[in-house]
């Protein structure tokens, strides 16, 4: 059921990579997953078209007029629906945000990426405010080095904390495996261990991130629906 979107109006922030990694990790643990590639670049669509077999279903027959219908359709069929959108704020993006249960904002740890990410957060909060429903979101650091945090990474973390925005504790690390699953057109879990350095670490990274995201989703599930005219205790 949960509809998870990756959004960041900064191009190349890692939206498609994050979606592919999560989709593969979910499928690896037996979940049924549909990825909706709503980016006209069709990054994930291209990945699936060229792949022999993928453990997830990929749809890219969408535009801004059909996106909501397709999301609803797939949410009835799959346990998880992941939506990838383009790296530029658009009406399609706001429509997807309104439909999702969790928006993930991948963010590379460099100053010039913080600004578009902050604007994406703003947009999400505005969508939430207008619909009187909090749209859950999490910022996810992407392409970080698991062993050292750069100065700008620490500065951005401090800034996000100060603003009180939710940041996932786990990062999507910079891993060759994440590039190779795309270029070799296969699942992260179908890469050849002997030919990809640190594949095991990438898999563990993906699963830890997934677990944290599932926890966030579970918190959301127990959340109460708007308390309009709630009965007194």
């Amino acid at each position, binding site marked *: 059921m949960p509809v998870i979107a990756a959004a960041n109006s900064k191009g190349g922030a890692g939206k498609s990579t994050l979606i592919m990694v999560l989709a593969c990790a979910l499928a690896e643990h037996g979940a049924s997953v549909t990825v909706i590639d709503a980016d006209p670049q069709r990054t994930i669509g291209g990945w699936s078209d060229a792949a022999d077999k993928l453990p997830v279903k990929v749809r890219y027959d969408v535009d801004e007029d059909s996106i909501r219908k397709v999301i609803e359709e797939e949410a009835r069929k799959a346990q998880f629906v992941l939506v990838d959108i383009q790296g530029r704020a658009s009406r399609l993006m706001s429509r997807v945000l309104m*439909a999702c249960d969790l928006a993930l904002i991948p963010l590379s740890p460099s100053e010039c990426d913080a600004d578009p990410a902050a604007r994406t957060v703003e947009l999400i909060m505005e*969508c939430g405010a207008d619909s009187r429903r909090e749209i859950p979101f999490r910022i996810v650091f992407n392409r970080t080095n698991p062993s050292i945090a750069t100065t700008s990474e620490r500065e951005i973390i401090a800034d996000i904390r100060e603003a*009180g925005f939710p940041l996932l504790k786990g990062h999507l690390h910079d891993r060759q495996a994440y590039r190779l699953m795309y270029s070799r057109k296969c699942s992260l879990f179908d890469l050849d261990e002997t030919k990809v350095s640190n594949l095991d670490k990438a898999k*563990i990274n993906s699963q830890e991130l997934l677990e944290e995201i599932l*926890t966030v989703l579970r918190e959301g599930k127990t959340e109460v629906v708007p308390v309009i005219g709630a009965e007194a205790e």
Partner: protein
Amino acid sequence: MGKFSDIKKTIDDGAGEGATRKIDVSDFAPVSGSIGRDPSRDDEIADRIARKHGLPGEPVSRVKLVRGSVVMDKVFVQGPITTINRFKELCNDRGGITYAEALKLLLDRYDETN
């Protein structure tokens, strides 16, 4: 909603280094009806916010120009990509006329109507 502190615990819990363990996802199921919100109202809100922020309606992709002729002088025009795309589409629709020809066309049309 989950601030930083709410989620600190999640990953430390039983994250056995090295091993890949099974993650239980069975508590997530496809929805039976809708995802629980009103689609047309949601789109309405989404569109209002998009309008307010000037977010483009169509997917933003550059329109490729198919033209052969020569431009006689240069003007640099910067503007919203939607406008530029419309302009290029006009050039394409007219069989790949040059920007200058398209501009002349628009100016002639303008003269006619004013």
